[in-house]
C-alpha cells in the first residue's frame, strides 16, 4: 500500500518525472565519464550556469501569468555593461554598489516592459521583442559603441565570483538564496499565490479583487530585477562586460522553464520545476564536451535533439501517468 502511493506520487507529478530524467542523465554521463560527478565539476556547472538558473525564476513568474519575456538578455547586457563602464571609469568601486546599480537598472527596465504590457495591453511577445532591440541598442550606447570592460578594469568586483563562503562559491550562494527565497515567496506568500491566480484565471482574479494589472507589472519587474542581477553575475563570473553578451540566451531561460514543466499558457509551474529544468540544461551543456564519442561539430545538433527528446519524453510519460491514473479510477 505504502509502495503504491510512492509510485503514484512519482507518476503523478511532473517534477518527480523530471527528477527521474535528471537522474537518468546523471547516471548515463557518469557512466561515460566518471569525472562528471565530482564536487568540483558540479560546482563549476552551477557557477557557469548561474545566470540562466537565476533568471529562470523570473521567467517562471512571467510564464505563470501567461506571459513571456524575450528582452531579458538585452536588459542583462544593459545593466552589466553599465556597471562595467562605471567600474572601468572608476565612477564606482564598491562591489555592493555595483550590484545595487545593476539590479536597479534591471528593475527599471522590467517595470517599463511591465507597464507597456499591463497598461497598454501589448501582447508580451511583441512588447518584449521591441524592448529586446531597444535595450540592446542602449547597451551599445552605454559601451560607447563597442568598448569592453575587461578583468583588469573591473577591480575588486570580479573577485565576488571567486570568493568562497562556508566552502561554497559566492555565486552558488546567490543561486541558493534566490531559489530559497522564491520557493518561499511563490508558495507561502499571498503575493506569490496571486501570481498563480492571475495566470490560472485572470477574469476570476479580477472579480475576486486582485489587481491583475499590478500583478503583471510586478512579474515583469521581478524578471527585470533578476535580469539586472544576472547582468552583475555575468560580468563578475566572466570578469568581462561586452555589449553583446548573452545574445540569444533568452531561449535557454525559456527552454529551462518549459522543460521544467512551466506552462506557456499560465497557471502551471513551480520553483522546483524551474530548478530541475535549468539543471537539465546545465547538465547537457556541462556534459556534452565531456563525452568523447562525437565530433565537436555535432554538439549543437545533439543539444537540440536532447531538448526535443526531453520534452517529448515528458509528454509521453505524462500520458502514461494519466492513463494509469484513469485505470485506477474505480467504476
Amino acid at each position, binding site marked *: 500500500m505504502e509502495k503504491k502511493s510512492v509510485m503514484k506520487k512519482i507518476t503523478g507529478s511532473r517534477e518527480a518525472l523530471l527528477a527521474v530524467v535528471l537522474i537518468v542523465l546523471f547516471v548515463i554521463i557518469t557512466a561515460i565519464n566518471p569525472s562528471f560527478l565530482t564536487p568540483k565539476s558540479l560546482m563549476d556547472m552551477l557557477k557557469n550556469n548561474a545566470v540562466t538558473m537565476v533568471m529562470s525564476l523570473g521567467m517562471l513568474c512571467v510564464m505563470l501569468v501567461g506571459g*513571456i519575456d524575450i528582452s531579458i538578455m538585452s536588459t542583462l547586457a544593459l545593466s552589466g555593461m553599465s556597471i562595467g563602464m562605471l567600474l572601468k571609469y572608476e565612477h564606482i568601486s564598491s562591489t555592493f554598489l555595483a550590484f545595487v546599480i545593476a539590479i536597479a537598472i534591471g528593475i527599471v527596465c522590467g517595470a517599463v516592459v511591465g507597464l*507597456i504590457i499591463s497598461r*497598454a*495591453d*501589448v*501582447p508580451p*511577445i*511583441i*512588447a518584449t*521583442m*521591441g*524592448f*529586446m*532591440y*531597444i535595450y*540592446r*541598442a*542602449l547597451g*551599445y*550606447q552605454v559601451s560607447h*559603441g563597442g568598448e569592453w570592460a575587461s578583468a583588469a578594469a573591473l577591480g575588486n568586483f570580479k573577485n565576488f565570483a571567486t570568493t568562497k563562503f562556508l566552502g561554497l562559491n559566492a555565486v552558488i550562494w546567490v543561486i541558493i538564496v534566490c531559489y530559497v527565497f522564491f520557493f518561499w515567496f511563490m508558495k507561502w506568500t499571498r503575493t506569490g499565490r496571486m501570481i498563480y491566480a492571475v495566470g490560472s484565471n485572470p477574469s476570476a482574479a479580477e472579480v475576486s479583487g486582485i489587481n491583475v494589472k499590478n500583478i503583471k507589472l510586478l512579474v515583469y519587474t521581478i524578471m527585470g530585477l533578476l535580469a539586472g542581477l544576472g547582468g552583475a553575475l555575468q560580468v563578475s563570473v566572466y570578469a568581462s562586460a561586452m555589449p553583446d553578451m548573452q545574445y540569444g540566451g533568452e*531561449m535557454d531561460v*525559456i*527552454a529551462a522553464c*518549459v*522543460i521544467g514543466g512551466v*506552462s*506557456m499558457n499560465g497557471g502551471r509551474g513551480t520553483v522546483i520545476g524551474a530548478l530541475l529544468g535549468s539543471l537539465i540544461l546545465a547538465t547537457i551543456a556541462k556534459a556534452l564536451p565531456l563525452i568523447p564519442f562525437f*565530433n565537436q*561539430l*555535432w*554538439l*549543437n*545538433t*545533439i*543539444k*537540440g*535533439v536532447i*531538448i*526535443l527528446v526531453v*520534452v*517529448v519524453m515528458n*509528454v509521453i510519460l*505524462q500520458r502514461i501517468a494519466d492513463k494509469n491514473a484513469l485505470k485506477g479510477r474505480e467504476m
Partner: protein
Amino acid sequence: MAGKSGRSINNVPESPVKKMIFSWEGILVLLFIAVNIFCAMFSEYYNLSSLLRQMPVYLAEVFMMLPMAYILVLGEIDISVGAIVCLSATMSCIVCNANAPFIVVVITALGVGTICGAVNGFILTKFQELPPMIVTLATQIIFRGISEIVLGSGGSISASNTDGFRAIGGKIGNVPYILFLVVILSVIFAVILGKSTFGRRVYAIGTNRLTAYYSGVHVQKIRFIIYTIMGTVSGLCALFLVSSSYGANTTTGNGFEMDAIAMAVFGGISSTGGKGNIAGGFISAFIIVCLRVGLGQRNVNAQVILLIIGVLLIAAVALPNIIGNVKKAVSMKKN
C-alpha cells in the same frame, strides 16, 4: 421562414470602403507614404531605382512573413524558420556544386524546406501538448546544427555554378523578379487566408481551437499543412538568398524568424491568434524595408535602426489600445 416572432435579422454588411479607411491597414498606408517622404528627405540616395536595387535581399524575408502570418493567426509561433533557410541554402549549394541542373537545385531547396517544415508539423501534431515555441526552438538548433555538420570546418560553401541563381536574381527592366513573385505570392496567401474556407478555418482555430474542433475543422491537418508550407517558403527564401550571395554559411538566415514576426505583427496580425490579415503584413513589410533602406543609406547605426523598429513595433500595438481605452472612457462619461 422567419422566426415565430417574425423577427428579421439583418444580413447586409456595411460598406467595405468605410471599414477600410478606419482600419489599421488604412493607417499603415498613410504611414507608408510618410516613411517614404521622410526617407526621401533624409537620404539623397533614396529613390525608386536605389530602392528597387536594394530590395531583393529584404524581399526574401517578406516571403517568410506570409506563412508566418498564418502561424500567428493560429496563435502559434515558429522560430525555426531561419535555421530552415540555412539548411535549404546549404543543401541547394551542395547539389549545385554536384553539377546538377538548376531545376534540381530548386527542387532541393524547396524540398529540404518542406521536409523541415513537415518535421515541425509532425511533432507538433503528434504531441499537441507541446508549445510550438519550445519545439521549434529545439528544431532550430537541430536544423542549424545539421548545416554545421554538413558544411564542416570552414562553415561556408559557395555555389560553383551561379548561372541559375543569377537568372532568378534577374530583372525585368528595373524591377527584380522577386518583387513580382512577392506580390503574386502575397495575393495568393491573402486570398486563401481572407476568402477561402481554409483561411476561415485557420481563423477559427486561432480564435477558439476547441470550438473549431467540435465543429468538424481538421485542426491537426491544417496545422500540419501550415507548418509544412512555412518550410517550403523558407526553402524559397533560401533560394533567393543564395541568388544574392552565391553561397551559404552557418549564419545564413539568422534572425529571419524575428524579422518575419515583426513585419506580421506590425501589420496588425496579433500573436495571440485569430486576428489580422495579409494586407496589413504586406504594407508593414514595405514600411520596414523602406525605413531600413532609407536610414541605412545615411549609415545610421544598425543598433539605432533596430531601436527605431522596436519602438515602432510597440507603438503600433500600444497606441490603438491606448486610444481605444481613452475613447471607451470618454464614451462612458457621455452616457
